[in-house]
Each structure stands twice: as structure tokens, then as C-alpha cells.
């Protein structure tokens, strides 16, 4: 067991502080970015470049009346928004930001991430069910089906990386990419992980549990005040988490030329994927629900299995040459 040295506590505090602030900052980045892509101004009144919109938004959320509908199932209704934030924050524990800057260097780090993301599905299901409202329930059902199906390929698409690195430890996986980033040999795995990541965070092209235009807000229609804020922040932290995972697993994590320190490389790469997520929201229409499920099970699952078999065969051949 790790002893609680000041340095160790500093890493925990630092990661927590940075992640919560990145999530808040993303509200501004997203609104200004969307405005830029769609040729309008976006929020530009409060402070320089409208940056204070973040403060205004958070103050508004904190002071709104926190209302629990009388027909809701109270304990579950309160529990649901906490689950999403807890699971996402727990996942950040295993991410190596730079050599030595990792909260818990677990040797099952990747599985821990998958376990936490599968627990995240509960927030949608329970939130939708406890609201006792038909739109919320529809959103929750869609959310449950979507997250369970996409979790399957998300896990399997990462197994190619595990085979090549020979470890579930995220630090070892980054070190194994010293010669070549895994995005080159594992391009199929990367694309599938990217799509599954959008589905897991239910971001716009695949935000079917929410779908504003048909289900109002889906599973969180009945939520207000800071409980809604938890879902909101949880979504942004989810995007940050998936971006961090893509960088760690496929784009060499902190590795990069020497003129910048490792942590800067990690932040730059993660920032790039965050912008990609926002651009996707601005440019893609939402598929129909049955199209999403069909695409997942009929296209992505066979592709993932094929990728896994071919990777395993090649790794075996390179190691032993089919004795």
C-alpha cells in the first residue's frame, strides 16, 4: 500500500483540481467553438472573450432551486447524478499524465477504466427510472441499450493494444509505444474505440438518450439546479476522460520530441481530441435509434473480432514464428 506522502497527496489534489476546472472551461470552449464553426458569435459579453460565462453559469447552477418532483423515487433520484461524477473521476486515477504523475499505478489499469465506465451506465438508467416520467424512462431505456452494446466493442477494441503491449498497465502501454504509436498498427481498433467513446459519453452524434428534439432532455428532464449540473459536468469530464484514454492508448501518451516536457505533450494531444469532439457535435446529424444498434452489432462487432484475431495471430507469429 502506498503511504500518503505530501507529494502523493499533491498529485491527487492536482488531478482533481485540473479535471474539475477543465470540465468547467470546456463549457466556454464548446459554446465559443460551436459558434465559430456555425459562423456566429456565441457568448462574448461577460469578461474577455466571454470567459466569465463559466463563472456566471456555475453561480447560476449553484443558486437555482434544487427541486425533487413529488412523484420521483427520492433516494435513487438523488443517487443517480452522483454516480456519473464519481465513476468518471475514479477513472482518472489510473491515467498516467507524465512519468511519475499518476495517482494509482494499477497493473489492471485498463480493466479498471472499463469497469468504471460500465458502472457509469447506472447514472442514466437510475436517473431516468427514478424521475417517473415517460420521456425520462424512454431516454433511460435507450441509454441502457446503447451503453451496454457499445461497451462490448469498447473493451474488445482495446484488447489489440493489450496484446501488443503485453500488459494492462497504462504506463507500460505508453512505454511500449516508444518506437511507433499504436494508432498505426491498431488503426481499426482506434476508430472503433473512438466511435464507442462517443456512444459511451453520449455526445451529440450519438446522444440518443438525451435527444433534445424528441425526448426534451431524455433521462435528465426532471433534474434541476446542481443535480442537473452534475450530469452536465459529468458529460464534459467524460469527454476529457475518453480523450485522455485515446492519447494514452493510441497516441503515445506523454511521449514526444524533447523540446517540450512530457506533460505538455499529453495536454496538447488531449486538447486536440477535445476539439475534435466539439467539431463532431457541430457537424454531424443524429442517427435513428435502430440504426445505431444495427450499426453497432452488425458492423462494429465483427470488425472488432476480426481485428483481435488478426492482431493475436501477427503477435504470435512475430514472437514464435508458428513453431
Amino acid at each position, binding site marked *: 500500500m502506498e503511504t500518503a506522502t505530501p507529494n502523493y497527496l499533491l498529485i491527487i489534489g492536482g488531478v482533481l483540481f485540473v479535471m474539475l476546472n477543465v470540465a468547467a472551461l470546456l463549457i466556454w470552449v464548446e459554446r465559443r467553438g460551436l459558434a465559430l464553426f456555425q459562423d456566429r458569435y456565441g457568448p462574448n459579453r461577460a469578461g474577455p472573450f466571454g470567459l466569465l460565462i463559466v463563472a456566471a453559469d456555475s453561480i447560476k447552477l449553484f443558486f437555482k432551486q434544487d427541486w425533487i418532483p413529488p412523484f420521483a423515487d427520492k433516494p435513487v433520484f438523488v443517487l443517480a447524478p452522483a454516480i456519473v461524477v464519481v465513476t468518471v473521476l475514479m477513472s482518472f486515477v489510473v491515467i498516467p499524465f507524465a512519468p511519475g504523475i499518476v495517482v494509482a499505478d494499477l497493473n489492471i489499469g485498463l480493466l479498471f477504466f472499463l469497469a468504471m465506465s460500465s458502472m457509469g451506465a447506472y447514472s442514466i*438508467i437510475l436517473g431516468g427510472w427514478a424521475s417517473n416520467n415517460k420521456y425520462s424512462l424512454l431516454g433511460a431505456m435507450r441509454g441502457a441499450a446503447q451503453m451496454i452494446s457499445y461497451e462490448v466493442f469498447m473493451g474488445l477494441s482495446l484488447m489489440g493494444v493489450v496484446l501488443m503491449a503485453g500488459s494492462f498497465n497504462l504506463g507500460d502501454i505508453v512505454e511500449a509505444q516508444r518506437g511507433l504509436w499504436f494508432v498505426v498498427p491498431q488503426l481499426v481498433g482506434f476508430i472503433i474505440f473512438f466511435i464507442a467513446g462517443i456512444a459511451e459519453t453520449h455526445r451529440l452524434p450519438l446522444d440518443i438518450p438525451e435527444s433534445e428534439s424528441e425526448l426534451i432532455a431524455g433521462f435528465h428532464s426532471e433534474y434541476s439546479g446542481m443535480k442537473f449540473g452534475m450530469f452536465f459536468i459529468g458529460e464534459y469530464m467524460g469527454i476529457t476522460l475518453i480523450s485522455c484514454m485515446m492519447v494514452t492508448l493510441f497516441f503515445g501518451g506523454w511521449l514526444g520530441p524533447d523540446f517540450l516536457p512530457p506533460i505538455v505533450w499529453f495536454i496538447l494531444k488531449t486538447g486536440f481530441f477535445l476539439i475534435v469532439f466539439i467539431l463532431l457535435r457541430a457537424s454531424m446529424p443524429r442517427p435513428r435509434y435502430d440504426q445505431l444498434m444495427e450499426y453497432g452489432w452488425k458492423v462494429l462487432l465483427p470488425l472488432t473480432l476480426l481485428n483481435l484475431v488478426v492482431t493475436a495471430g501477427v503477435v504470435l507469429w512475430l514472437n514464435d514464428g508458428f513453431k
Partner: protein
Amino acid sequence: MELTFYIAASVAVLATIMVITRYNMIHALLYLVVSFLAVAVVFLTMGAPFMAALEVIVYAGAIVVLIIFVIMMLSLTREDVEQEKAWLQPKLWIGPALLSFVLLAELVYLLAIADMPATASAASYVDAQAVGLALYGPYVLGVQLSGILLMAGIVGAYHLGRQKKKVIHRFLQQEEAQKERSAAL
């Protein structure tokens, strides 16, 4: 390490008791999730982190979500909770409680007479490779049998779910007609 084991084990036992005494199904399932998580921690303290991760991913993450999914479709209301209460009279617990008490006594006796094995912290460390080698070595028959069982389940579900669409949405009618025309040719 031993203390963490006892804490996790007692949480698991308490959560499981809560599962069987709840009248509301969703609340019972939530306690079931807690119970699975506690068992995962038990695995972790016994030196099997890979099994702990799989316990969370498969049981807590996937299976219970599917059960909740089915229960949501049943649309249970407050009346159902009342009915459940009416069905489960306290005297119904007596029989099962007596029978399981006998089992518990037997288990305690067996644990008491057995040579105490090495403590949890000294237990050997089981990683992913060891699990894989065991599954595809001595237990390969079990893996194949469970594969056949799952295959049967999938085929059965496909058979039950396969039926022709009776009501076609107006947006899909054209597409459907085109499909039939090409099938006729």
C-alpha cells in the same frame, strides 16, 4: 490487508441481506450491485485483481444492468410494492431461515476443524496470464460447454425475436416496398 477483507466481506453480507428484504425491486438490485462490488474488493484483497475487475465489469456492470432493463419494462408501481408486502409475511421466513442456519452451522464447523490456510495477504498472486492459462489448460472443457450454452441462448433469443413487421412506419413504407420488389425479381 486482513482488516480490509473483513470489512468488504461484512459489507457483502449486509448488502445481500438488504437485497432479499427490499420490497421495491430496483432498490433490491441497487443493493445487489453493492454486494457485487464488495465481492470484487474481497477478490482484490485475496490477490486476484484480474478476477476483481471482471467481477465489476461482467456482474455489476453488465448483468445487473440487463436485469434493471427488464424490470423497467414491467413498469412496477406503488401498488406492486404493497402487493409484494402482502405476499411476504414474516412467518414465510422461518422455514428458509432454519434450513440455511443448518448450512451455516456446518460451514462454521468445517472452517473450525480445517487447518487454517495461509492468511489472505500471503495468498499467491493470480494475474491475467494465470487465469488465461487455467481456462485454456485444465478447464478448457468448461469453457467450451459454457460457450455452447451461450450459443443456445443466442439462437433461442433470435428465434423468439424473429417475426415479420406488422406495422410499418410511413417513413419506412417506401423502403420496405422497394425491398419486396427486389426480392420478387
